[in-house]
């Protein structure tokens, strides 16, 4: 149980995907025009990530090493088609907003990264916890980024106008450059926060995690 919690909680802060692993940036930049879009995208990724992690972990011993990537992608693609059909059925407006980025979850680095780095080496319950943690971290990050951009770019949050009267929306934020500026600013803020926190705690400065962090370290 403790190990499951450990795998789950690392996705929420220590390895939160867009800010720490810097993976899955294409949807992070493209669909976060509003908090709702970011949240919907995150939910789709949670669904795909948890199921594909569980599936891959379940069959990890029977997949030949040489063809594993193809198998991983085939399994992730199956999940993505499922989530796409579900979204068309139940949340059609959101599906129209996200557009091409739903099918593109297949090639999202996070899915393949977690499959290769974690699910292919760990038992099912750990893989599920890892997928859920990373997925929720991704959703939080996307919702936060989308909320920030929506707040300043359109003056609203989840579609409700919240800014005071006389506020002129800063349209740059909902354009493409705003996504890069926002993400860059948040990355800088995260690094700054980490440095300050580790200095205060008397710990060493953390080294930036390579793709998928220490769980895929070759020496382990």
């Amino acid at each position, binding site marked *: 149980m403790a190990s499951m919690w450990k795998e789950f909680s690392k996705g929420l802060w220590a390895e939160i995907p867009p800010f720490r692993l810097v993976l899955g940036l294409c949807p992070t930049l493209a669909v976060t025009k509003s908090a709702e879009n970011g949240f919907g995208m995150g939910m789709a990724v949670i669904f795909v990530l948890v199921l594909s992690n569980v599936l891959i972990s379940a069959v990890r011993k029977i997949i030949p090493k040489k063809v594993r990537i193809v198998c991983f992608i085939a399994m992730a693609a199956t999940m993505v088609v499922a989530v796409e059909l579900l979204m068309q059925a139940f949340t059609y407006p959101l599906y129209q907003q996200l557009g091409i980025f739903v099918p593109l979850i297949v090639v999202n680095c996070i899915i393949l990264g977690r499959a290769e780095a974690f699910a292919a080496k760990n038992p099912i319950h750990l893989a599920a916890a890892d997928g859920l943690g990373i997925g929720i971290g991704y959703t939080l990050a996307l919702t936060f980024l989308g909320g920030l951009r929506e707040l300043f770019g359109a003056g609203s949050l989840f579609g409700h106008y919240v800014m005071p009267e006389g506020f*002129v929306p*800063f*349209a*740059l934020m909902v*354009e493409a*450059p705003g996504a890069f*500026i926002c993400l860059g600013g948040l990355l800088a803020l995260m690094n700054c926060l980490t440095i300050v926190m580790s200095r205060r705690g008397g710990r060493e400065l953390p080294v930036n995690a390579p793709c998928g962090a220490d769980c895929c370290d070759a020496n382990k």
Partner: protein
Amino acid sequence: MTQQEKNLTEIRPRFVVETPPYLHRGYTISGMMRDTFIALLPAAAMAVYYFGIPALRVMCLAAGVCALTEALWQKALGQTVRVYDCTALITGLLFAFLLPAGAPWWLVVVGSVLTIVLGKQVFGGLGCNPLCPALVGWASMTVAWPTYMDPMAMNLTSAFIDPLVRMKFFGWEAMPLSAQSLLLGRQLGGLGSAQIGAVLLGGLYMVARKTVRWEIPTAFLVGVLFFGAIFWQLGEAMGVNPASAPPPHLYLLTGSTLFAAFFLATDHASSPVAFGGMVLYGLLCGLMVVLIRIFGYYPDGAPFAVLVTALVTPMFDLIRSAPYGKGRR
């Protein structure tokens, strides 16, 4: 200001030099900024003459906020505070020159902060900026608040008209202003950049003082005239509506073409250093101005032209002459 800080602001730009003995020409950063300031004065005076206190307000606000932002940033990041070299002040002034005189105060403040932070400091500060900082601020504001950056909408009480809009939508023959009144700045546009004659005066002063190299403005203007003449004469054969391809001198007399040529394209960090590179850079700027004016969505192509062309500067910097004595045999 302590003695040490004073020494830093008077520091001479130091280059890594080879063995031959060189003479220092005595340029300092603050000296160059002083020259730029003097060059900007005539246009600033004309802007105040035509637009009154609002123009003065925009210029002071932009310059002040830029300097303040730079000082706060350097303080917050623990860098040496070098705001006394006046580069931020001049950058703010250049940014203000591109704004309409009636721009609201919050636009000027946000734009000035973005100018310094996004345009300059995130890349490492003075001399590290890949683009002209004032243009970064201007472009952000143009994308974010296009209506508040429109000179027509922001100067409703003014009797002047915006010749660029007339030329864009009604054809250049429908533009009623004479060359003389255009030269005197009797037109709407950026508050300082539309003072064509005064900007030209200041630009020539800068070139004469060698604050900027003469190659870039010359190549820029030659490029505008050359490509403008091509589209004017041969545009119809190429399928361009002749009403949207004005005679070449109108490119120079309207909008911020001259201002961009003398003050923006010559930004020291974002323009090429060698002769060949500078000439190609200027010509490409000129071509971009003409293309954006004729085919583009924005009426004034000059700031975007410089912004886009500055991205190619690293390529132009590859063109350099062989060192003396190391040439072909």
